[in-house]
Structure formats: C-alpha cells, structure tokens
C-alpha cells in the first residue's frame, strides 16, 4: 500500500546496506525525536500487565529456589553423573544473550555501521540485564549457595585462596568485568538523553533524579568532545570483552576432559553462538517495541534487514561449528568421542540435537531471502526459534556429555523437575522485569544519536499544516518501504507532505 507519490529520491527507497548514511525520512526534526521517544515513557495498562506477569514469574522462581535451598539440590532433576543441568544451561544461555548487545553498541559503533543507531540502546540494556540474570545461576546451582563468596579472592582468616586454575574462578572475573563495563557503557551513552529528559521533566522528584544522573550535562561543546572520546574509549574497551567473556565461559567445558566438552573449537564456537542468540533476543525485543511504541519510522526495515543479515552470518558460523565437531570426533579416532557423538545425534539425545540443528542451522537459512529479512513478523517468529534453539544448544552440550561419559556403568539420563522449570521461568521474569522498568524510565532509543541521522529540515510544511501533518505523522507516519506491515501504519497513509 505504499503511496505512489513519494517525495523522496529512489536512492532512499531501496533497502540500504549498513552504513553511516542512514536516513529516517519520516522524522521531521529533532523536536519530533524528543517528543516521540519521550512519549514512549508514558506508562500504559499493557505495560503494567506485562510488568505484573514478569514479577509473578520472578516470584515463582524465588519460591522454587527457597524450597531448593531448604531441602537440597535433590529437588532439582539432577541424575548423577549428570551433575550440571538446567541451571548451567540457562547461565550460558543468558551470558550469550548479552553479547549481541555489546557487539551492536560497541563493535558496530567502531565500524560505523549506521543501522545500529536505532537499536543499540535496547541491545545495550538487554546486555546489562542478561548479565545480571546470568550472574545469578552460578550461585543458584551451588550445593551450598551461602558459601558462594569463597570463589572470590579476598583476605580471610583461613589463609586460603581460591584455586586460580579453575575455570569457575575465571568465570567470576569474566562476569564481574563484563557487568561493570557494559553497565558503565550503557550509562555513559545515556547521559545526554537523561539531560534531555531532565529538561522536559516537570515532576520535581523525577527532575531531581534525572539531574543527578545527568551529572549536570549542559550540551556544551566541551562536554560533547569529552563524551565522544569517553564513548569511543569504552567501545574500544568492551570490544575484546565480547570475545573474551564467552571464551572464558566456554572454558568451563573445554578445560574438562569429558567427551563432547574437551574441544579447542569451543571458544570461537561459543562466541559466534552467543552473538547469534543475542541477535535472536534483540529481534524478540525490538520488534514488539517498534510496533507497540509506534517507532517503525525509527527502526526501519532497513535496520532490521541489516541486523538479519548479521544473524544469518553468525548462524552460518554456528552451523559450521556443529559440523566441525562431528568431523573432529570422526577423524579423532577416539572411541569415547565417537560413541558419544553418535549417541548425541542418533541415540538417546537425538531429539534435543535435532531441535538445535533445525532452529539454529536450518530455519535461519530463510534469511537468505530479502522478503523474509524485511518481514518483521517472520523475523519475530524466527527469533523465538533461535532463542529456543540456542537454549537447546547448551542443553546438548551439557547433558548428553555427562550422561554418556567414559564409564559405561554410569551412563544415565536426565529429566528436569518443576523446580528447574520454575527457576528458569523466574530468570525470564527477572530479566523482563528489569527491561520493562528500564523502558519506562529511560529512553529505549538514543535520542542524541538519532538526531544525528534525522534528515535536514525542509522549508514547508507551514506551521498549521505542520501541526496537522504532525498529528498524522505520529499516528501514521509515511515510512519509506513500510508496505507489508499487517494493519500497517502506512495503511491509513495520508501522503500529506
């Protein structure tokens, strides 16, 4: 239903490649940016409903954990020698989610990939909350969680230190570092926007808070110079973390001699998987936001398209890694490895392995088609499959290995209990609670950066017409290439410019 007469040159209608020269044609001026983005902060009923659901899930998780602490880990589905299960799986899952955020906000920033502009704030917030979620699980799965601090090196009266050879200790450092850096990065990026909100805020209390958070930002030239430097520095600083953190997580497995874990391919394989899963979660989050906050003219199909390409790319890497694993097992001549992989793919755990392969290798292939890449609905459905698939990837790594190890006498199976599921659910509750709170307190899109890509202001429309078109602009903005959105906003398209 694209309107025939579009005022824009053809060059701006074709899907763009990721580049700094992103245009947001439907955005008239800076004022509109402020207005529309800040408009998203108005709490709605739907938002309260979602928040309530999230908190409910969280409470379920908390009660399950309390019960588990009281009666012992036996209430979870552990089936020795499968000594790790849902908790570690979910830990790796959430850590992975985090990576896309840093990738988009930091690495793509360094590469000047313009399509990140509209989505990176979401992604960055997602990262922080994902790491907060992941960080819970290593504690949560302990036999004696109240002793977790023994993993932290600190001077103590016992004169004992942690075992620095243990990947679990590396994890502690990796997670803490990652959390510190990514949250700092998020906050620094927020400062100018907070200042904006401070200026528009009327409620004195909120104003006070915003003022405090904005660190007295006055949009001065000097501030901007420092800001960009700091931002660039942090971007450069967090870039290696994307690689290092998940490599460290992969060491939890690669450092063990368990068949199926003991593989040098793990670090790159995990990093790619992490970014892939992260992109999945980005879609899961950004597409509804785009729809319900009516921000299609900020997160344009071009942006989704570009992000989808990256998803496809990482999916291909992951797929390659899967195949490489099998090939290694095959060529290694190591019977433990071979028997294990056979059992994984064609034996006991075939169902899980094939869920993984279909969700992470096969379905993403659909992104070779541009039509699907530019179809938000499909992207969203696919993203759910990707999340599922990536959770099962970790399942396939953790459980089948432990259940089919060196000692045949101890081969076994594994089935989670309601405690596992409740805590898994709780982790989603925890994550979304934070995210929902975030997106109503702070702008989910970087106002200041969006302004960088807003097209130069045209002479007309005249004030009253502008008034009129603005209303429409908000309600049904005329967006380039926005033509297949179901009940799409383009539908009522008054081509009034």
């Amino acid at each position, binding site marked *: 239903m694209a309107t025939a007469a579009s005022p824009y040159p053809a060059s701006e209608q074709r899907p763009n490649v990721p580049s700094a020269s992103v245009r947001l044609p439907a955005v008239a001026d800076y004022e509109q940016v402020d207005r529309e983005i800040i408009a998203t902060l108005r709490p709605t009923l739907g938002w309260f409903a979602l928040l309530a659901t999230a908190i409910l899930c969280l409470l379920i998780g908390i009660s399950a954990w309390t019960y588990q602490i009281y009666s012992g880990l036996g209430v979870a589905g552990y089936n020795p020698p499968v000594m790790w299960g849902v908790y570690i799986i979910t830990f790796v899952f959430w850590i992975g989610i985090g990576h896309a955020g840093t990738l988009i906000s930091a690495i793509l920033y360094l590469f000047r990939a313009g399509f990140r502009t509209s989505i990176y704030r979401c992604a960055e917030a997602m990262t922080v909350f994902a790491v907060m979620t992941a960080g819970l699980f290593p504690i949560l799965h302990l036999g004696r969680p109240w002793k977790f*601090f*023994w993993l*932290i090196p*600190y*001077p*103590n*009266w*016992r*004169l004992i230190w942690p075992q620095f050879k243990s990947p679990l200790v590396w994890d502690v450092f990796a997670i803490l570092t990652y959390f510190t850096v990514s949250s700092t990065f998020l906050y620094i990026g927020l400062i100018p926007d907070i200042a904006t909100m401070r200026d528009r805020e009327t409620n004195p209390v909120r104003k006070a808070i915003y003022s405090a958070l904005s660190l007295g930002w006055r949009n001065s030239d000097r501030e901007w110079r420092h800001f960009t430097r700091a931002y660039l520095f942090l971007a450069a600083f967090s870039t290696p973390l994307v690689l290092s953190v998940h490599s460290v997580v992969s060491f939890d497995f690669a450092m063990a001699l368990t068949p199926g874990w003991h593989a040098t391919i793990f670090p790159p394989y995990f990093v790619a998987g992490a970014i892939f899963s992260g992109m999945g979660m980005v879609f899961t989050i950004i597409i509804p936001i785009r729809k319900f906050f009516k921000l299609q003219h900020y997160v344009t199909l071009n942006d989704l398209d570009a992000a989808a390409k990256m998803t496809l790319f990482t999916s291909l890497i992951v797929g390659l890694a899967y195949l490489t694993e099998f090939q290694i097992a095959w060529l290694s001549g190591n019977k433990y490895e071979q028997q294990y992989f056979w059992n994984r793919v064609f034996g006991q755990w075939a169902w899980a392995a094939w869920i993984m392969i279909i969700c992470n290798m096969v379905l993403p292939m659909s992104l070779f088609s541009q039509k699907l890449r530019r179809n938000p609905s499909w992207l969203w459905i696919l993203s759910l499959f990707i999340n599922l698939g990536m959770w099962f990837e970790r399942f396939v790594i953790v459980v089948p290995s432990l259940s089919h190890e060196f000692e045949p006498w101890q081969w076994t199976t594994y089935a989670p209990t309601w405690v596992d599921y409740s805590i898994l659910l709780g982790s989603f509750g925890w994550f979304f609670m934070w995210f929902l709170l975030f997106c109503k307190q702070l702008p989910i899109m970087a106002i200041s950066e969006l302004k960088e890509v807003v097209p130069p202001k045209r002479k007309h429309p005249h004030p009253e017409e502008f008034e009129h078109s603005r209303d429409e602009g908000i309600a049904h903005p005329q967006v380039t290439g926005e033509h297949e959105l179901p009940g799409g906003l383009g539908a009522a398209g008054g081509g009034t410019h």
Partner: protein
Amino acid sequence: MTERRKWTAIPGLLALAIGAVVLSAYSGASSSQNRQPVQPINFPHPKHAGPVAQGGMGLNCLYCHNTANKSPDPGMPAVQTCMGCHLVVAGNKPEIVKLAKYYAMGAPTAKPIPWVRIHKVPEYVRFPHFRHVNAGVTCQTCHGQVQTMDRVYQYSSLNMGWCVKCHVNGYDPKEGLRATGYDTTTAMTETPSAERKRARYDCANCHY
C-alpha cells in the same frame, strides 16, 4: 601521581578494604573467644592447679584430665574422682555439697555433672590432644593460664587461621613455657625458625 589523582584513588581502596573486612567477618571468623559460661559447680581451678606459692595445690592438669596424653580426648574427671578427696576434704562447703548431691554415694539417683563445654572445634575437625601434649605443647598455649582463672573462659579463637599459624610457623617451646606463667626466667630471645616444632598443615591432616 598528582594530589588530585591520589584522592580519587582512596575511595576505591577504602571500598575494597571494607568489603574484604565484611566478607572476612561474615565467613565465620567470628568465634566464641572469651566466652565465659557459668558452670553447674563453680570449680576453682586456682585452688587445685594454682601454684602452691599462691595457695594452690599445684596439681598437674593430667591428674584430672588424665587422658590428654593418651587419647584424642583430654577426658573429664569422673565424679568419683572428685569425691575421692572430697569425701574427707571440705565436705561442708556449698559447692562440695552440690557435688555430693550429684554423686549421691553412687545411689541410683546419682547423675554426672553437666559441665558446660567451653573449648570446642567444629565437628569436621580432628584434634588429637595427645599428639600435641606429647609434642610438648603446654596446655596453657591453647587454654590460657587456667590455673589462675576463677572461672574458665575460651582463651583462644580456635579459628582455623589460629591453628594453621602454629602448624606452619612451628611451635616455639620457649614461648610455650612462658605461656604457662610458671616460668618467668626463660630469656625472651627469639627462637630460630629451625628449632621450632613444625607440624603438617595438609588439610586432610585435620579434616576427614
């Protein structure tokens, strides 16, 4: 570094220090040191074990705690042991009357004295008294000068660090001697590390 930089560094270090202290305290360093419970019978150690000069009888600790040098357990004197003397000695004193009530001349009503335990290591620790006693560690090194305590209290922290310190750095017999409080003559010279009595500090030495 400049003055300003230094000032910015301090809060960070401070935070670290506080965190360490809190965690360290939380992690069980808190001990029942100096705990001084009331005993069912107010047994005067000074009277029995105190130096004769100070009106004590100078009994050896091993007279009552007679398995300290042959068993992991120092042993508490049987009520009969007390009555061995107190049948004839000081029978009219109130505390002795209590004692006699417990003993009840071995009648069926007799019951042991429920002494309140003061020095105790956790159940996952093995502390063989006799290894220490036979190695020449004086009782006072760990229990303090009980012979002078009107009411016994927990002298040492009994924390693991406290144990390990001695196992690693070694036990200095001279210090041990001084700790008894009987001997004040020994010169206060530092014992060379080689002459200290060393013990294993392997975890499985005490924890199994």
